[in-house]
């Protein structure tokens, strides 16, 4: 796919994107980096969102060390393939402990599509918003059909910084494999 021409975007407003709360299914493919005092890592990421579940595949370059996270309600399953599966009903803590992914996935699924988590307070900034003690900044956006979706974003607090590059979006008719 040709490299993504960044779209010039004015100041961030949630109102301009509120219709995206209605998207039932989406898929993204890209790269993720997490930086924290304890550990830093980066990986390829594929994320399939369905109305009430998330399926996230992380893998290193050349596809090695693949891990699949499935989150539904408050149950999370971490599958490393070959029968190595662990589940927990304390998802946030389990994911952060097992994978060092220190950002709450339940919120990240809104932030990734450029929206504050619904039902929670937030304050808008020029290129994103602050919510739940996290600063979300959309550095570059990209045209995806009729929508404008995040291409390069960061999520940070004073200890942790997560960077996400989305190389490809599939909205609505997004098939999950």
């Amino acid at each position, binding site marked *: 796919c040709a490299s993504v021409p960044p779209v010039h975007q004015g100041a961030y407003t949630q109102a301009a994107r509120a219709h995206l709360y209605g998207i039932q299914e989406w898929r993204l493919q890209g*790269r993720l*980096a997490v930086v924290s005092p304890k*550990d*830093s890592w980066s990986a390829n990421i594929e994320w399939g969102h369905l109305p009430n579940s998330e399926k996230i595949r992380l*893998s290193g370059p050349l596809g090695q*060390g*693949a891990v699949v996270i499935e989150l539904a309600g408050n149950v999370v399953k971490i599958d490393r393939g070959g029968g190595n599966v662990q589940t927990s009903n304390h998802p946030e803590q389990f994911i952060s402990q097992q994978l060092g992914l220190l950002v709450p996935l339940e919120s990240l699924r809104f932030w990734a599509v450029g929206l504050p988590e619904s039902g929670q307070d937030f304050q808008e900034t020029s290129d994103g918003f602050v919510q739940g003690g996290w600063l979300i900044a959309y550095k570059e956006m990209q045209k995806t059909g009729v929508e404008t979706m995040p291409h390069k974003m960061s999520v940070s607090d004073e200890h942790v910084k997560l960077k996400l590059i989305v*190389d490809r979006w599939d909205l609505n008719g997004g098939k999950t*494999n």
Partner: protein
Amino acid sequence: KTHAKPHAAKQGKNEPVIQLQVFLKVSKSLSADFKQVLINEVGNPTQTSYGVFYLQRPGKFRWDYQKPFKQEIVSNTGKVWFYDTDLEQVTVKKVDESLGSTPALLLSGDVALEDNYTMESQGTDGDMQWVKLLPKSQDSSFKYVLIGLSKGTLAGMELSDNFGQLTRIYFSNVIVNAPLKQTLFEFKPPKGADVFNDG
């Protein structure tokens, strides 16, 4: 390191394994272009990327993705630098921690194949001879690695992860034993990138 002498292998049947061992012994350096195709469990190609690969035995390699995005993986002195241009992040890890048994590492001579893999000849198709490497250690991040040789030189690789996803690599413009600039194997972190050294 003396390579275990293959037991009285019938010449034909074990030809690919012998070819691979000869290739690894003969080729001190290598450069090649590569095309990489990720294929998911149901057989659909999900992502194709292109790049270049350099190798200097023992222990040095560079694996650069150029399209659709830029990533550099450089290894020497037992460490691996991984740099993603868009993410502006460099992670440095010890060789065995970061990439375990990735193909670049296999070929760079840091890992004695016989110690870490059982090798099975997969026979010949067309002018390609295939060898299957099965990791001896359980916690390898791969189920198997296939190495394909054409006319005795590296031509292809296939890695199957524990989910059955395949990473297929096709090498082209393969040049063996040409002198390579050593700066290829030195990684200079770009200005402004977050560098994390737990190597």
